[in-house]
């Protein structure tokens, strides 16, 4: 499976300059622009996303952070008016190469959304769906293992192990979100994108997701868009601040939240008029 993907990789490679204090880059972007029709929604964004770390995108509504996140698995392809320029590389592979299989890309780059969106199927089927369509499991037993281990990694297994055949939509909001994370993990992605994954959850469910994110970063590269600056400060190692389509500032999370260099970052995170 992995070999197939590797063979499909075009020869074009994208390299980054190693940055201090971070793990090597998993995702590299160079001069990325996104246009929605005439609107220039994202302007010349160049940033490295370190592997097996959590990178947070923050910024006011409409700043382009979700738009940028959606470039990483080419979700913007589904919007006909959207146009993306520049380069985005994952492990050196140009993901906008026309010969690239988008379905395979999305298996490598999973996504979790703001509102939990389990399929109207059983808990088991929610997790088994991805591995099944990607042909990852050779047997029913193997599929069972994938489902159980994905639910375990998502911190949900103990709560649902006796009712795997019940509907996923019957779970609480926080459980549904963890189910969606399990579903994303099940196809063995390397990168997980999270677009405000806790904004519809209560504080306890939020804490569980944050704890989970902290565990997941040992094995996955995580990019999270969040409106909660405290959440960005808690869960991420790297933070990037966007404003009006510009990447204003990026750096170690500790630095961004205690001593940002840019005036606009300072004003935004301290709740001042920007």
């Amino acid at each position, binding site marked *: 499976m992995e070999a197939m993907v590797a063979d499909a990789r075009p020869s074009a490679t994208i390299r980054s300059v190693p940055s201090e204090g971070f793990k090597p880059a998993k995702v590299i972007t160079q001069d990325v622009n996104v246009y929605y029709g005439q609107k220039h929604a994202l302007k010349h964004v160049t940033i490295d996303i370190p592997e097996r770390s959590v990178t947070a995108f923050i910024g006011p509504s409409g700043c382009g952070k979700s738009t940028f996140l959606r470039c990483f698995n080419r979700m913007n392809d589904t919007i006909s008016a959207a146009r993306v320029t520049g380069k985005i590389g994952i492990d050196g592979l140009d993901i906008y190469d026309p010969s690239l299989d988008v379905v395979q890309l999305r298996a490598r780059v999973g996504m979790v959304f703001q509102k939990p969106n389990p399929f109207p199927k059983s808990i088991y089927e929610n997790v088994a769906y991805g591995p099944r369509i990607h042909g990852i499991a050779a047997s029913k037993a193997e599929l069972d293992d994938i489902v159980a281990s994905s639910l375990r990694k998502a911190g949900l297994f103990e709560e649902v192990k006796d009712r795997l055949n019940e509907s996923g939509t019957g779970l609480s909001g926080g459980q549904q979100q963890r189910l969606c994370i399990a579903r994303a993990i099940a196809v063995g992605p390397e990168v997980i994108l999270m677009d405000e994954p806790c904004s519809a959850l209560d504080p306890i469910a939020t804490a569980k997701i944050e704890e989970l994110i902290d565990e997941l970063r040992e094995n996955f590269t995580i990019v999270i868009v969040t409106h909660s*600056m*405290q959440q960005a*400060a808690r869960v991420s190692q790297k933070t990037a601040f966007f404003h009006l389509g510009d990447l204003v500032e990026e750096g170690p999370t500790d630095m961004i*939240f*205690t*001593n*940002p260099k840019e005036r606009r*970052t*300072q*004003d935004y*995170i*301290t*709740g*001042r*008029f920007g």
Partner: protein
Amino acid sequence: MSEHIVAAYDDELTGIAGTIAEMGGLAERMLVDSVTALVRVDTHLAQSVITTDLRLDSMQRRVEEATISLIARRQPMARDLRDIVTALRVSIDIERIGDLAKNIAKRVAAIDGHFHPKRLALGVEHISDIALEQVKAVIDAYTGKDSVAALAIRDRDNEIDQMYTSLFRELLTYMMEDPRNITFCTHLLFCAKNIERIGDHATNIAENVYYQVTGQQLADDRPKLDESSLTPADFGTR
């Protein structure tokens, strides 16, 4: 810096900074009064310093409560966070300066009625003048958010340390000259040490102001010049 979207946030921050400036003024007054009371052996003035310290303590508690509450309610970030942490630390240093001035004032009652030639206290008066300048300057640096002034204040603490070491020798000499001086000089020595410690608190405040303004912690590479603990007392017995 522009204002917060939530106006009450600004009011709270301003209120805390105001209380600290007030505390600074009170601590300066206590230092002046305690040393004046010491030199003149004025127990009445000394008592007023001791009373003022209670006020300073309660103001410190107010700052502490206000900063903790602000952190809990507003989750401050960046410059705001540094402002609030600095306010908390500075208030503790000022409160300690008040304690040290109070300690000086407490000795006045002990000296009262004993042999106390005025000239012996001149050195203590002098070191207290320098310490007072430092305290005043550092409170100004805090209210003016002046990191350059803060650095200069930090460097000047050496003067106090050196002066303390020489004062230590001087007081030893007085004690050797005339054993009747021993009681007074011992009290003066403790007072001098208290004043030297006040200088250290001024330095702490300066370092905090520097952090508040720049976001950088100063490295702890400042030379310490209080060598009194290494100074031998030579009684000329050999």
